[in-house]
């Protein structure tokens, strides 16, 4: 257990319990919460955990602010979509698309990093913003290749589709390809998350923390700070791309809104801050909370506004259209009361 978690234990009883519950719920989601919508939410949580963890490697451990994380996510997603479109459906296309996506993402991160991390961290943030915007424009312009604003719908292997049956029913759940697809997403995400956890607890991870704390001294004890920052950027980009590949496999669709939009970047930032920067487990908590809030807050508010129907002002405030406002309020409150995130807060209580 210690080796699986790379010696980075949750170090708090409530945190252990919460993480345990999340793990069990995700592992058994198709059985505990059968339903297209709930399983879709669970898959989204898995993927965002990886995406946010890879961002935390950069921000929380490396102290590097990037606005291009969604772009790397999108590169992985488009990689799978393009490979599946041009090679035909099949696991080989998924593999080629994922590996190529991760490779392109890492290479692009290398170029951006070498170009800008030498100068100043803030310069890197600006460059990533510029490159991400440029790529988003490019993707919508190159509609011949990328499908433009409409995106690409493609087919994944038959074994991952609802039409594929490999048994009858288990606990009332149909044993079909969609179930297999969910477990592919779940296991892929779990492995990637544990990999990230290992990296931040490796000697390399310690150097990143040292650089975040005091890059001047890190350099003076012999570490080439720029090389470490660039390496972290590449690794984080590659993992983000793999998360994007999983997302595309799950949706069997990729488009600018699902894989490249600035909204996703904002979601990632919210998740990493709410969960707790520099903790990895914060990614799990932040992604779970926010994905659930995004999926169900609107419904909940719809119900609530129905209940208070007839009273003044309240139905207006609780109308489902105001859910973003309430998400913003929640965010401000959580940052105010838990500046170190949920994980930091739980660990500090002891």
């Amino acid at each position: 257990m210690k080796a699986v978690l790379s010696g980075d234990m949750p170090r708090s009883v409530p945190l252990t319990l919460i993480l345990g519950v999340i793990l069990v719920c995700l592992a058994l989601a198709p059985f505990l919460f059968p339903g297209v919508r709930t399983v879709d939410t669970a898959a989204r949580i898995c993927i965002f955990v990886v995406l946010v963890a890879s961002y935390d490697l950069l921000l929380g451990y490396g102290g590097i602010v990037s606005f291009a994380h969604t772009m790397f996510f999108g590169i992985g997603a488009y990689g799978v979509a393009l490979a599946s479109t041009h090679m035909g459906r099949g696991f080989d296309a998924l593999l080629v698309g994922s590996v190529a996506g991760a490779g392109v993402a890492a290479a692009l991160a290398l170029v951006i990093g070498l170009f800008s991390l030498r100068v100043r961290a803030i310069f890197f943030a600006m460059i990533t913003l510029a490159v991400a915007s440029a790529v988003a424009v490019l993707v919508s312009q190159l509609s011949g290749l990328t499908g433009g604003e409409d995106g690409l719908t493609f087919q994944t292997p038959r074994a991952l589709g609802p039409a594929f049956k490999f048994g009858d029913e288990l606990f009332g759940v149909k044993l079909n390809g969609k179930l297999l697809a969910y477990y592919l997403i779940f296991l892929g995400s779990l492995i990637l998350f544990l990999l990230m956890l290992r990296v931040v607890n490796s000697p390399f991870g310690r150097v990143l923390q040292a650089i975040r704390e005091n890059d001047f001294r890190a350099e003076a004890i012999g570490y080439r700070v720029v090389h470490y920052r660039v390496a972290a950027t590449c690794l984080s980009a590659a993992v983000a791309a793999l998360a994007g590949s999983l997302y595309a496999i799950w949706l069997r669709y990729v488009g600018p809104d699902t894989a490249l939009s600035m909204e996703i970047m904002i979601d990632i930032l919210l998740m990493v801050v709410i969960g707790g920067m520099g903790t990895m487990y914060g990614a799990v908590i932040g992604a779970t909370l926010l994905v659930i809030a995004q999926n169900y807050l609107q419904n909940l508010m719809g119900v609530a506004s129905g209940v208070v129907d007839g009273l003044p002002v309240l139905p207006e405030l609780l109308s489902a259209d105001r859910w973003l406002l309430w998400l913003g309020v929640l965010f401000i409150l959580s940052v105010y009361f838990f500046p170190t995130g949920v994980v930091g807060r739980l660990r500090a209580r002891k």
Partner: protein
Amino acid sequence: MTPPILATEDLTVRFGGHVAVDAVTCAFRAGELTAIVGPNGAGKTTYFNLISGQIPASAGRVLLRGRNISGQSVSHRTRAGIGRAFQLTNLFPNLSVLENVRLVVQAKAGQGFNLLSMASRHAELTDAAEGILARVRLLDNRDQVVSELSHGNQRKLEVALLIALDPDVYMFDEPTAGMSVDEAPVVLELIAALKEQKDRTVLLVEHKMDVIRTLADRIIVLHNGALAADGPPAEVMASDVVQEAYMGRELEDV
């Protein structure tokens, strides 16, 4: 005589119109402990910054084992054998005392790009770091977060990082400043031990005369950034420039 391990040639830096280090030419040999003295603002720390690479020189060169290293980065110079302890404590404040030292040991072991093993399982790194902590009497504080450490202990840790680095050229910038009378001797003993080792070069910025008298093989005096005197302690201390400018005041009363 052995060739110098470190030398500066006409080393100069200007900040705007102010010349902080002024054409300093000086060579340092292995086994030699040189005290660098001069009043506050004389350019001692800046001279160190030029040698270890934190600041680029406006003119002149830094030679390590005869090779010009003037254009090289701080980390390159560190790996080449120039180590530095800072006058203003410069640590990793939110990491533990042990982790601070272990980072240095790990850098020396070339393990920085090891991504897939668990840092906590590298017993050889931990053992080496604990050995260093024992030598500076900080082993009891090993798990404390640095920002919670007393000022004196932070100063000790500053020295510990340099000892862990074990470079060929040690540069100490007022290592005992801010330490209590019972903390300073530990550090001075460590510096004396380096001198005993005979193969290390030590540059020591220090104000306390008794310390200089017992440790230094040689004194150089910086005055307004320029080299004002250079020679054996007795000679330099007796010289007019030192008698007039420093012996009476700064050196004694700091």
